[in-house]
């Protein structure tokens, strides 16, 4: 496409099928403690695949 570049991302709709294992880190166990940022948690399954 001439004017649009699509960045590689995880397809959230697909993740309705593959996700939900719950093994990822609880966000407040890392460094926030006063806000909720779930987007920066790594997917445990994706880590395993790597």
């Amino acid at each position, binding site marked *: 496409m001439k004017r*649009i570049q*699509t960045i590689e*991302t*995880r397809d959230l*709709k697909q993740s*309705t099928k593959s996700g939900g294992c719950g093994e*990822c880190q609880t966000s407040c*166990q890392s460094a926030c403690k*006063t806000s909720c940022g779930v987007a920066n948690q790594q997917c445990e399954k994706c880590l395993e695949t790597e």
Partner: protein
Amino acid sequence: MIHQFKLNGYNIVLDVFSGAVHSVDEVAYDIISMYENSSQDEIINTITVKYPEVTPNEVIECVEDIESLKESGKLFSDDEYADLAFDFKKKNTVIKALCLHIAHTCNLNCEYCFASQGKYHGERALMSFEVGKRAIDFLIENSGKRKNLEVDFFGGEPLMNFDVVKKIVEYARSVEKQHNKNFRFTLTTNGVLVDDDVIDFANKECHNVVLSLDGRKEVHDNLRKTINGSGSYDIIVPKFRHFVERRGNKGYYVRGTFTHNNVDFTNDIFHMADLGFTELSMEPVVCSPDDPYALTYDDLPVLYEQYEILAKEMLKREEEGKPITFYHYMIDLTGGPCIYKRISGCGSGTEYLAVTPWGDLYPCHQFVGDEKYLMGDIWKGVTNKEKQNEFKLCNAYARPECKDCWAKLFCSGGCAANAYHATGSITGIYEYGCKLFKKRMECAIMMQVAKSLK
């Protein structure tokens, strides 16, 4: 739903429900913004007037590209998650993380502490080994098939009860294999009592350590004071440097809080980097608007600019081969959380609970001391089913204010405790926090775009 923004020379389009991110030129940016509410003729007219060099055929070509992305589910995709959000959290009954309030006491007297110098508005107390051991058993019993279990040693200052921390870890390690569990421990400390014994222990046993430092000496010392009122910077910084040097490649964060007193907080982050720390976090203070150091609405434009400065500087440092990590910019567009995580949130009150020194359970560390939110205890389990259900229904789709918000799949509707303290309800929103959060996400996405296009 889409979200469009321009930052650092990039024109970015986020497709909210697929998570797709596009970097586009000015023409496509404008066409995408008109696409849903204008006819093709209207788009052609507007674009060819604004950009005389662009022909009607080029506009049509771009519209066709947009349609093709729409068909492949990467643009203007529909929201299919609302039902999923409630079902998933209702079914999900396991507990996988505990915040152990190992010491409700502290050896610092930080003015902004939400835990009121560690006491959480109650009496000073230390957790006994018996309570800690029972908390570990409680977690194992309630964790179902989850393998990875997380325990955070929190306070107050947990190192004021370090012997019990060590014994709890020893106990957990002695039982984890037989239950097919893997404990991940985090230690959050102000640094005052860090010594080689603590460092050896943490480097062997702790998946993560969180080291509290607010940045520049004058900023840190202004609010993080010892009991006799002097600053704590000179006490802790050498200890933290030694700690991190010896930590190797194990996880840590140097974590600060910024307030109205240091709205130029990037200088504190860069100061941390100058001290040799690379894994950094800096949180906006959450406090009563009446507190003298509370962030104000007039601070917002400055803070937005600060977040942009930080993102640009981080890109520059990465290019120069000396990268730093900022917790809130750590988004992984390909290996980030699945949709279930994104809609269900931090898990407070459901899969994450806080344990007081005497074994009471609260939805998270920020609710401890508020009797309305007492959930039960580690012997009888969660007995306040009404409160548990409130938290089960608390997700990215629970708040009317989030309905049209592009960022809800990045924050899951935000922090329940912040919402409660700001509005009296866990399904309210802490609007000020939302504004900063959205700015951080735009910066984080921009950084990913910049790296991808390099």
